[in-house]
């Protein structure tokens, strides 16, 4: 069970200073050029005041857009291989929303279910999450339909909920305790606030377990085609998604040396499954859209006993043609 404290605005200032002194960078949502994105901050005053979410997810802290997996030098008849080290920076993610905090679990499931991915693990080990509960939601949000909630603690090491004069602070994990231990005096006794009263209210939009149960029988349903008609296969939804984990492996080389890089990819791209023969198992955009839904709501529950979607709505906000995931899921659940 979480230990609950109060963290005043003033003490949060102090905590940022202590974290930085401990050699950690603090990444938090910052307003710049009309967008809100994660950035290095020194003081809480730099953190966006009005954000619902950042556009990009925080996943690149543990799963960068491009990660070097290895490098090599070549000469005729010989190759020298060099292992790559992730050089993970000690990082505190401040202000991510509960949905996104939970998403790290979905990435972890894939990166470690069988073979262990040292790049992901090194970065995850050095990261701690100070989540902040949501006091407002928008039309794209649907965390409460996928087992989460605006003040859900899962995935946060410390969860802050705004209260008068500061935050209610729930210290949830060993990593959270380690942060508290850096400056225990900043965490004052909690005041028994009911955080459910403060957190945003968000109606459940659809019955997810029922949807998951019926998806296997809906594969040939015409609905996927209808929903996907406007999708242009740009992949933006996967790039902003905090759980999309698919990647490509690319080579960057000249005649003497090279490196092998892992880069984000998306099942929405037609090239994703294209065989060298020209045969493509997912020939149409509707098959690719269906894969997106099935991977998150059918494959994930079956393979990892969890959902591959946290209901953050980032995809909906980013989509250039207004594909609304929540609405499409409601439609599927009612089909």
């Amino acid at each position, binding site marked *: 069970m979480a230990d609950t404290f109060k963290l005043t605005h003033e003490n949060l200032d102090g905590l940022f200073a202590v974290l930085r002194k401990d050699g950690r960078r603090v990444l938090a949502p910052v307003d710049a050029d009309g967008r809100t994105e994660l950035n290095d901050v020194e003081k809480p005053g730099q953190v966006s005041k009005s954000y619902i979410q950042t556009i990009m997810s925080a996943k690149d802290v543990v799963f960068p857009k491009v990660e070097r997996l290895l490098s090599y030098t070549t000469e005729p*008849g010989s190759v020298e*291989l060099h292992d790559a080290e992730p050089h993970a920076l000690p990082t505190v993610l401040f202000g991510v929303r509960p949905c996104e905090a939970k998403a790290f679990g979905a990435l972890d499931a894939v990166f470690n279910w069988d073979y262990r991915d040292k790049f992901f693990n090194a970065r995850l080990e050095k990261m701690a999450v100070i989540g902040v509960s949501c006091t407002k939601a928008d039309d794209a949000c649907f965390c409460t339909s996928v087992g989460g909630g605006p003040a859900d603690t899962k995935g946060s090491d410390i969860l802050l909920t705004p209260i008068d004069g500061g935050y209610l602070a729930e210290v949830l994990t060993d990593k959270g305790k380690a942060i508290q231990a850096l400056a225990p005096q900043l965490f004052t006794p909690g005041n028994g606030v009911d955080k459910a009263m403060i957190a945003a209210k968000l109606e459940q939009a659809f019955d997810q377990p029922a949807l998951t149960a019926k998806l296997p029988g809906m*594969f040939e349903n015409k609905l996927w085609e209808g929903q996907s008609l406007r999708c242009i296969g740009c992949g933006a939804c996967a790039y902003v998604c905090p759980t999309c*984990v698919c*990647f490509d*492996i690319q080579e960057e080389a000249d005649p003497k040396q090279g490196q*092998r890089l892992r880069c984000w990819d998306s099942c929405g791209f037609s090239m994703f499954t294209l065989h060298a023969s020209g*045969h493509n198992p997912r020939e149409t955009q509707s098959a690719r859209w269906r894969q997106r839904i099935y991977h998150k709501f059918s494959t994930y529950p079956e393979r990892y006993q969890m959902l591959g979607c946290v209901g953050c709505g980032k995809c909906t906000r980013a989509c250039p043609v207004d594909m609304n995931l929540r609405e499409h899921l409601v439609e599927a659940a009612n089909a």
Partner: protein
Amino acid sequence: MTEKNIYLPYLMRITQITEESPAVKTFRLEFVDEVAAQNFNFKTGQFGLYSAFGEGESTFCIASSPTRKGYIECTFREVGRVTAALADKEVGDIVGFRGPYGNVFPLEAWKGKNLVFIAGGIALPPLRSVIWNCLDLRDWFKDITVVYGARSVADLVYKHELKEWNERTDINLVTTVDPGGETPDWTGKVGFVPPVVEQLGLSAENTVAIVCGPPIMIKLTLPVLEKLGFAPDQIFTTLENRMKCGLGKCGRCNTGSSYVCKDGPVYTLAQLNELPAEY
């Protein structure tokens, strides 16, 4: 705690190159590192990711038999960036290999049964591994039949091994080429694989069929096998979904709840019937 880099390949030296047919080559690869060579084991049906340093990785099955120690072999067709770079290599050059990955042909479960291998075109490599494996364990099995078809005589791979199998009495080899693909001295059959299989008068009794080939050949061969009485769990095939990691992570090979790189590439028809047809 330092974890192993699962993306790091073994370095392999090319010790033999065989030109099988136009644009198809077989490499024999030996481990550069002695210790890696000693510790390496695989089972028939498994595959790996082969690197041409400078261009990237490609997925091929391990085409040699695990009973043949000290090397692995792969047979590949030149179709794109990596395969073209591999095709340019010479004996003595270094390539990379990650593996073995994926599941295996269940030889133990096939003990005491008749085996029918049916392959088309470049799809003989995965079956070559298991055929040699079965021939090296010959007394485990009853009759072994191989039906192999290609577009033309020039497109048949492993010609010297076909000759050897043809001469052996403990394996029944039937080769066929598509109409028009025969040469004047061709002694095999002329015709597509499915009708050739139908004419063999095979019995499904105590028999498993292993089918690999282009999608069209598989599609037309399955009804023939069903007509002969083969049940879906008596028919095996391998899938070739596009792969990048081979480790169940990159998502590329995912179909339904299966990762072909982990749960496959070997599937029974009964298992395939449970998956969406996205392969």
